[in-house]
């Protein structure tokens, strides 16, 4: 059987840059699936490769993509026959719901996270806050490379960063968007890029589309 090609455009980097995998079904009693945008495709592949009996023991929480060009896979996901299917308008709207899911589930529930790094990071952070070790949760990256970024200076988080460098949406400093990543903040680190000479303003390039 051919090895599936990764659908992710993420390049290898430093040790603190998250590395994602490919979702694969386990023998756990229940399955909690959370995805956004193109990540819906990873769930479709997961269910496709899963044995009979998987879908009735699974729950799907899906945020259709707000990213131009990314399909809304809701119909296909709904047709999988999972025990429950829920659509949320945004990742942030979804979080309180899955926080409750994490709280009430039992050990022996496999968690699957797929899609943007924002969805994966925030869902994982929610799982960690419920006491689940981050390694317990399977992840697969698909679609946008847009990042969440914490400004190390003012601590504000800027969403959907696609350029290098990027402006902090809180304090206005121009930041180098590093690959150094914090699971606790579910964000990459931004550091003032022109501290030594604020008059030097490097042009922004779209590097995380």
């Amino acid at each position, binding site marked *: 059987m051919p090895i599936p090609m990764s659908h992710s455009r993420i390049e290898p980097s430093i040790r603190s840059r998250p590395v994602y995998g490919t979702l694969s079904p386990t023998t756990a009693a229940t399955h909690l699936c959370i995805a956004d945008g193109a990540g819906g495709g990873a769930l479709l592949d997961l269910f496709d490769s899963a044995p009979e009996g998987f879908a009735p023991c699974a729950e799907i929480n899906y945020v259709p993509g707000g990213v131009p060009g990314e399909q809304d896979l809701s119909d296909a996901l709904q047709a999988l026959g999972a025990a429950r299917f829920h659509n949320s308008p945004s990742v942030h709207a979804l979080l309180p719901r899955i926080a409750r899911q994490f709280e009430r589930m*039992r050990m022996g529930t496999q968690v699957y996270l797929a899609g943007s790094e924002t969805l994966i990071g925030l869902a994982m952070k929610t799982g960690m806050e419920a006491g689940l070790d981050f390694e317990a949760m399977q992840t697969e990256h698909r679609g946008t490379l847009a990042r969440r970024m914490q400004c190390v200076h003012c601590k504000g988080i800027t969403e959907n960063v696609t350029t290098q460098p990027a402006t902090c949406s809180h304090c206005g400093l121009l930041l180098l968007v590093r690959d150094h990543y914090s699971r606790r903040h579910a964000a990459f680190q931004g550091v003032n890029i022109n501290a030594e000479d604020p008059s030097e303003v490097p042009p922004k390039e779209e590097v995380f589309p």
Partner: protein
Amino acid sequence: MSSLHGAIEVVVSDVVTVNELIKRFHFKRADGKPLPAFSGGSHIVIEMQDGDTLRRTPYSLSSSPFDTDDYQISIRRDDAGRGGSLYMHEKVEPGMSMSISHPANLFALDKRAPKHLMLAGGIGITPFMSQTAQLARTGGRIELHYGVRNRDLGTYVDELSARLGPDLHVYLDENAERMDLDRILGNQPTGTHLYVCGPEPMIEAALHSARRLGWPQAHIHHELFTKTAPGEPFTMTLQDSGVSVEVGETQSMLEAIENAGIDAPYLCRGGVCGQCETRVISHDGELLHADHWLSDEERAAGDKIMPCVSRCRGTLVLER
């Protein structure tokens, strides 16, 4: 003779026969100062001078980690072993001086866990004694399942019952009572951590069930009391030290190295922690790997060995 790392001189303050198989030994510090506080699940290495034989064997501390006056270990007599437990049972008496190491912990609680699920078999109860004592002070939910042969061999059931109340579940072999692993493991709240200690088949069964039921590896902890098994004597050459050393029948390679006055790294002395990993420069015959650290590939490659538990049928040259 290389000295025991960080040795503390102690006096045996009491020896208590707990039941027909198990004795408990109490130690107080010889100089009267407090013993170090420790973390639940820790072990100490006891140095035993048994005639010409020097043994260094690890035992879990079963006392409270906050008790700095008195350390307690509980030892099950093993008639088929190297002789360490027999020595302790038959030769050690109150008033004797001994050397012990500082406590070290390779079976620690995950402090993030809102709940700790413990499965104990037989003498495997010992690390849970210090862990439950610690949690009684610092807080944390516990559920302890304890399988024993019969009530008499149920070491510390009374003490644990007083400490844990309904959170303790005891299973008597003689009544064919068995832990229902699917039920126990299937209903635990998010964030629970699982800890297993007991005979190897019991640990295997528990881990197998947990993994099958979808428990993540990061939430599963176990401690296997690996014993250094006796074996045929053999000779090894320590290349860096330029000496040839005979490993006796009931002596581990590590003890033989130490007996030759050479200081070698170690921590668990039970084949699980990796600290004593030593390069094998060459060997004639067969390496008898008895550890739980090296991978299958590393064992097959034959260029590494764990001297605390492994042996050789033949001869070997070590980078030591």
